[in-house]
């Protein structure tokens, strides 16, 4: 059994997705149940689907001193880092703790592979074209090494790439390092941007819906792919008295199939139990769950059954992928931010996009937005390879 976790302060957080730049844009879109999906105008060959695209990423190159890292994924990260005073909070933490005492722990599924794809589209005599002759880009570590360089941090720097659970798992990496005294603070989060690899890749698996995704709808027929960046600073409680808290996390493996979840949701349930145990809470203590809810047949079937059999009706649950699309390796941190916003705004977000609920769903599902006092909330993230993560958060006053 895992040990009870000492909560950590989330002293800053931010998110950027198809809903807009920063937390306020997300709060407004969620309050109004206004989604961000649009018809696909991104892939280099036509693909009939909807996407969650962040407007204007192409128009914002990185500052010249970081030109080596310039690509869509790092631009999206840089846009997000400048919202909600986040960059200033990182610099203040660096001032407080020193550059070697802050870890950069970021999740991504495809990092800047969009730049590698572009290089292959315009090869120069069979070689990467000169302007993309930048080894820092053509690696999964592109994002984390860029963020560490941009803030001049030289503590531990790790990329977690476990597909769609990536940027949830980094919260666990941070907790372990802080608990053991290796660091004083961590920048966690992640970024994934639209690229042909994921659009045509999920299309090849016949997992992409031709219309906006409908999580937990009886007639759902696949995911909508989105892009997003989100970040949070984790540090010890003493450092930040009024912040929301990370109170637990769980990680587990399905051991079932590379691209299909375990039929009984075994890994998902183990991750959930791990998170509850570390947080020292019971299912009845959970006020809200932000579900993985991709709108794929299998994920939603398994997750709906898990929620229905585990939680009382007073626990409210919704997937917000109808708002943002499935942002893959960024989904963990984006949905962590949405969960924290739900607490802050005292509103359970709607399960947008669904008209005919799947009969497998229990009474926990919030099909429409609901006013609520959310003291404790969970966020689920499950990935290819049967990789499952669950995060547990609490509102600030739980500390009294």
């Amino acid at each position, binding site marked *: 059994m895992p*040990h009870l976790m000492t909560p950590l302060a989330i002293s800053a957080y931010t998110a950027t997705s198809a809903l807009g730049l920063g937390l306020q844009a997300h709060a407004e879109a969620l309050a109004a149940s206004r989604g961000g999906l649009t018809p696909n105008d991104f892939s*280099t*060959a036509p693909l009939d689907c909807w996407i969650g695209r962040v407007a204007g990423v192409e128009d914002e190159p990185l500052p010249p001193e970081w030109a080596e890292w310039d690509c869509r994924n790092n631009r999206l990260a840089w846009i997000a880092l400048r919202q909600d005073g986040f960059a200033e909070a990182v610099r203040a933490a660096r001032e407080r703790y020193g550059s*070697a005492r802050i870890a950069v722990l970021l999740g991504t*599924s495809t990092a800047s*592979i969009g730049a*590698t*794809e572009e*290089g*292959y*589209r315009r*090869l120069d005599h*069979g070689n*990467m074209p000169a302007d993309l002759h*930048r*080894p820092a*880009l*053509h*690696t*999964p*570590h592109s994002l*984390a*090494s860029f963020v*560490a*360089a941009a803030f001049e941090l*030289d*503590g*531990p*720097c*790790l*990329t*977690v*790439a*476990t*597909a769609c659970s990536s940027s949830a798992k980094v919260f666990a*990496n941070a907790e*372990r390092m802080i*608990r*053991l005294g*290796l660091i004083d603070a961590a920048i966690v989060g992640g970024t994934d941007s639209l690229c*042909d*690899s994921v659009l045509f*890749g*999920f299309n*090849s*698996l*016949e997992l992409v819906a031709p219309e906006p995704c409908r999580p937990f709808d009886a007639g759902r027929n696949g995911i909508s792919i989105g892009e997003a960046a989100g970040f949070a600073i984790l540090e010890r409680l003493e450092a930040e008295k009024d912040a929301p808290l990370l109170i637990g996390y769980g*990680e*587990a*493996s399905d*051991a*079932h199939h*590379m*691209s299909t979840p375990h039929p009984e949701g*075994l*890994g998902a349930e183990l991750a959930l139990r791990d998170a509850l145990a570390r947080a020292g809470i019971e299912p009845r203590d959970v006020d809200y769950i932000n579900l993985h809810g991709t709108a794929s047949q299998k994920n939603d079937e398994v997750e709906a059954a898990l929620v229905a059999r585990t939680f009382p009706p007073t626990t409210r649950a919704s997937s917000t992928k109808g708002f943002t699309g499935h942002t893959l390796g960024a989904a963990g941190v984006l949905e962590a931010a949405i969960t924290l916003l739900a607490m802050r705004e005292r509103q359970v977000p709607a399960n947008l996009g669904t008209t005919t609920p799947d009969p497998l769903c229990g009474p926990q599902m919030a099909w429409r937005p609901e006013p609520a006092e959310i003291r404790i909330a969970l966020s689920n993230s499950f*990935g290819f*390879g*049967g*990789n499952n993560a669950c995060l547990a958060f609490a509102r600030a006053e739980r500390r009294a």
Partner: protein
Amino acid sequence: MSPALSVWISGIGLWAPGAGDWHAFRDIVADGAAPGETARPVADVLPPNERRRAPESVLLAVAVAGQAVRMSGRDAATLPCVFASAHGDQVITDYMCETLATAPRELSPTKFHNSVHNAPAGYWTIATGCHAASSAVSGGEEAFGAGLLEAATLAVADDRDVLLASYDIAGTGPLGSMTTTTGPFAVALVLSPRAEGAAVRLDITPERGNSGSEPMGDAWLDGLSASNPSARAVPLMRALALTRPAALRIAAARGLDLHIDIGVAA
């Protein structure tokens, strides 16, 4: 100053061109044996049909992980695992980018799901029935050190044995010229938070700066070490093969080394 992390080594696996497992590597380093023929990695943990179809990165990572767990005598089904790689499966990434540039709708669904960085972790957990936490990490050229720091942290923090496997395969195509990975290499360690009969302890302390690696004075080892990011482990593996106390530094990030004291029980 006490080390930040102390872990014991209860299992070791290795595959290098010319050294098909840890024992062959140890014979070369400690007993002066000549490197042998390069053999296909033996990923016998995988069922035969998976072994035939598995991508190179999966074969390599699963082969060394299997060696290390077998030596440790631990049950793979209960071991949390960390799979580290600078670049993942570069052959699949090359295939993906080339196909997307020419005929995107013909992308192979199997290649796509094998392209995820956690494919080796996925195949490993499926083959061993492992429901514990599994992770797939990168740290660029410092991926081995970053993975070692993560695996040792997990072992001490949760007081559990942890499997670390670090692998990279040779680059190919236009991508290959960007990654400077010229040959395959993989290594695995089972790390334990307590001695429990293990003879070798690693005391690990992060220290600022990158000292760079000193040549080991052996053409084969130095060539190996320069060929592949995961082969940054070679100086550590050489010290383990010689089973005598030693101190060395391994980069874990830009500007961060791990100082490692290797302690050997008398």
